[in-house]
């Protein structure tokens, strides 16, 4: 029997606000001591009350706009209760009943639209590290602002799930609301997978795989779940609704300590935070601050760049912005340089954090067009843009320093050609060419290049040779 998978994804995005969602403590704990970014509000000293970070509200508006969603002018916070040492208050402050972001959608590069059911603001939990006989608690991450984006069950393949997560990641990075560092958990995905026989109008029993932090693991976990569930159903067994963990090393999902006795979070409106009322003016002013998003760039560069190059380069928001600063004719050659030269470099990610200026790049393209640089020379100069010593210099200065500018002066070139033709060492080749041997032209051009110490433009050299030997 053929089964149709249905996949829903919940994605947590850590917002890169300066301070936490409910306190004035530094939100960026990278490289800091455990429990050093924690205020009495965060560790839940009695009598402490949450304050609301306006920047997080503004970022949520931007994120909502980026996912084509309606921003709700009234939203509220609620408490979600559970006991665990990563939750100092004994509850998480979230938006259960009235989220800030309403329905929206994300359009995948394939054109598929995945609808967003809603997205809400909430505080992150702390981090536990488990040892044999004890566990350590780090509250640095407590109440880092998150938006949780809940998709509708519009995804039907592991590949689309991968593309959705990637597109969501790109969209949030472009909107500037997250650092987007997946390795450090800036975005985490919970994936709900079920399968049902083709043509069935009912969905199958779903399983949830929690806390995936790469697109690849999302794809693999879903592939695994689809085949696991299929085997179960084919053997006449049932899929149990449960929460699973993903083991990247074994490539398998595993049941998480069967503690899943239908948790009751006892949601309750948060009485310490008044409702958030937003005016249309406030929302619109914030939306105006959203820079171009991946789809805007697809529209902007779609006719200039091949789709595969564009999709590769879209992973780098700063690069796309740089391309947007270039004159139209430079866009394609520069994009090609990045796609074929820079991304092949071992340290490409590090190099991409210091992009050359638009002028440097345009000048380079112009020199190439004038025939002043060979393709190899263009690559050499381009890579020097990322060199800490030479990177600040303009294209011509670097080319001069590398001594790679081609000789295009027709007079000078003719002189060299004359010397080559007159050279007794070339007499045989000259004679052969005149007798009709085409292949020796390469040898003669090579001699011109040699005499010019590589600076001659080989195309021009050949042209002059042919004219003189005709």
């Amino acid at each position: 029997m053929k089964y149709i998978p249905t996949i829903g994804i919940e994605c947590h995005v850590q917002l890169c606000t300066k301070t936490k969602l409910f306190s004035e403590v530094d939100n960026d704990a990278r490289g800091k001591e455990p429990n050093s970014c924690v205020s009495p509000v965060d560790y839940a000293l009695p009598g402490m009350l949450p304050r609301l970070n306006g920047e997080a509200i503004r970022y949520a508006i931007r994120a909502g706009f980026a996912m084509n969603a309606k921003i709700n002018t009234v939203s509220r916070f609620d408490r979600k209760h559970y006991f665990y040492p990563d939750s100092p208050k004994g509850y998480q402050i979230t938006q259960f009943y009235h989220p800030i972001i309403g329905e929206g959608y994300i359009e995948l590069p394939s054109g598929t639209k995945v609808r967003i059911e809603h997205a809400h603001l909430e505080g992150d939990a702390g981090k536990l590290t488990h040892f044999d006989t004890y566990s350590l608690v780090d509250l640095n991450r407590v109440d880092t602002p998150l938006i949780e984006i809940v998709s509708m069950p519009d995804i039907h393949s592991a590949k689309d799930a991968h593309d959705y997560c990637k597109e969501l990641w790109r969209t949030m990075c472009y909107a500037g609301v997250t650092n987007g560092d997946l390795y450090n958990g800036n975005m985490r995905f919970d994936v709900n997978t079920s399968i049902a026989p083709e043509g069935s109008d009912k969905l199958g029993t779903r399983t949830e795989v929690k806390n995936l932090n790469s697109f690849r693991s999302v794809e693999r976990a879903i592939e695994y779940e689809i085949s696991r569930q299929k085997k179960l159903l084919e053997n006449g067994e049932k899929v149990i609704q449960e929460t699973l963990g993903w083991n990247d090393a074994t490539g398998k999902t595993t049941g998480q300590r069967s503690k899943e006795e239908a948790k009751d979070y006892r949601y309750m409106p948060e009485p310490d935070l008044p409702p958030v009322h937003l005016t249309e003016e406030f929302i619109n002013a914030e939306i105006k601050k959203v820079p171009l998003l991946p789809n805007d760039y697809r529209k902007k560069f779609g006719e200039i760049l091949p789709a595969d190059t564009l999709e590769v380069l879209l992973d780098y928001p700063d690069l796309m912005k740089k391309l947007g600063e270039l004159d139209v004719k430079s866009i394609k050659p520069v994009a090609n340089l990045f796609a074929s030269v820079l991304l092949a470099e071992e340290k490409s990610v590090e190099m991409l954090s210091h992009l050359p200026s638009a002028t440097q790049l345009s000048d380079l393209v112009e020199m190439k067009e004038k025939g002043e640089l060979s393709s190899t020379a263009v690559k050499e100069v381009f890579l020097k843009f990322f060199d800490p010593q030479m990177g600040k210099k303009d294209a011509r200065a670097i080319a001069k320093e590398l001594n790679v500018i081609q000789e295009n002066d027709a007079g000078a070139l003719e002189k060299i050609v004359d010397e080559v033709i007159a050279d007794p060492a070339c007499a045989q080749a000259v004679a052969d060419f005149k007798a009709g041997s085409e292949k020796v032209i390469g040898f003669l051009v090579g001699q011109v290049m040699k005499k010019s110490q590589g600076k001659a433009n080989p195309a021009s050299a050949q042209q002059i040779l042919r004219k003189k030997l005709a």
Partner: protein
Amino acid sequence: MKIASKDVSAVSMVKEALEKAKRCKNYNIFTSLNEESALNRAKEIDEKIARGEDAGRLAGVPYALKDNFLSKEGNTTASSKILEPLRAPLDSTTVEKLEAEGAIMIGRTNMDSFAHGSSTENSYFGPTLNAYDKERVAGGSSGGSAVAVAKGIVQFATGTDTGGSIRQPASFNGVYGFKPTYGTISRYGVVAMASSTDCIGFFARSADDIDLLMQICSGQDPKDLTTLPDYYNEKNDKEIKKIGIIKDFDLSKVDPSIKKAFDDKVSELKKDGYEIVELSMPALKYALAVYYIVVPAEITSNLSRHDGIRYGYRSESAKSLDDVFSMSRGAGFMPENKRRIMIGNFVLSSGFYDAYYLKAQKARTLIIDEYKKAFEKCDFILTPVSPSPAFKLGEKVDDPVSMYLEDVMSVPLNLAGVPGLAIPAGETESGLPVGLQIVGPRRSDKALLEFAGRIAGEAKINEEVE
């Protein structure tokens, strides 16, 4: 308010207060005294005065702090075992404001653990005794603060009022007790009971003294987003003409001495030219039911942070994570705390939320509207504070419902967020104090205190120690 001056030193005022506090030891008023630092503070104030500097509007005034206010002085125990070891790293907004005006905290007062109760019998440190009869309760939950003022130890004490916890003990001990409009005083740094009804307020000997404390402590606080913009210190020129009485409260069921005090006050007001308006407020009969749904729900939530992990009591016999939670909480909370935690969890659990919590919130809206309508017909409302004067110790401990009924006339105000003041209004035949309550519309706090100052005199102080 009597403040320190060149003639009366702060040191002498603090010494006197501490001596009185020690003399009243048997009443179990304080959970801790603050002798050394209080005297040091008093010396600083005296030096300021000697240098001719402004030492504040409460210069050298000793005061008592309810044990659920965070202060760097002493342990903030909320009269519970679970918080007994807690030394707060900061001061609550109220403490900060009082001390900036020169007030000196001489000790922390006993209360029902986490303010759950109406008699101060639920304290981990044992009950506080009534200022007029040691066999009777002080009222609660702010029992220690009420008795500290009634015994003349301090001129004022702080309290919290979630359903009557200031007004009822004030009336049981014959002093003034004020619960302001919700949001008038910051809750920052006060151990939360029920966030949507908790109010910070004061016990004092006169409405004037409370007015001064309100001037100092009210106002918007960025650390408490539910505080109102500062309205208290705006000029008030409201003329008071009409006093409402609620005919739905069946006064035949209250203690005769309270009914008499009420009738006397109504006649007196009539004689003074006030118009008495009869009000029908049928929704108030739901107030207690609504209160015992909404408040336990918030209590269970607010008490979740006491898990034995980061501060406070942790069971030493705990062997697993679940043990740490259940054994620390099991031993750290009093039976009444646990009762409310269980009620709260029940009404919030999935499947019951709509039937209880959501419905209670709707009924709460009805109560709010009813007060709004009532105040279209009158300026203030006069009611008793509680159905009876101070009851005997142990009398209601095993009967939680009858204990809850103590609050029947006080909780509606907390649900509606309106202010209420307990005023002394005579005594029973056996000499127990009787109090009445003046209720005003939201933000009428200043006018209410001024009105009370006109219709009631200074509270009696009972310095006698049995």
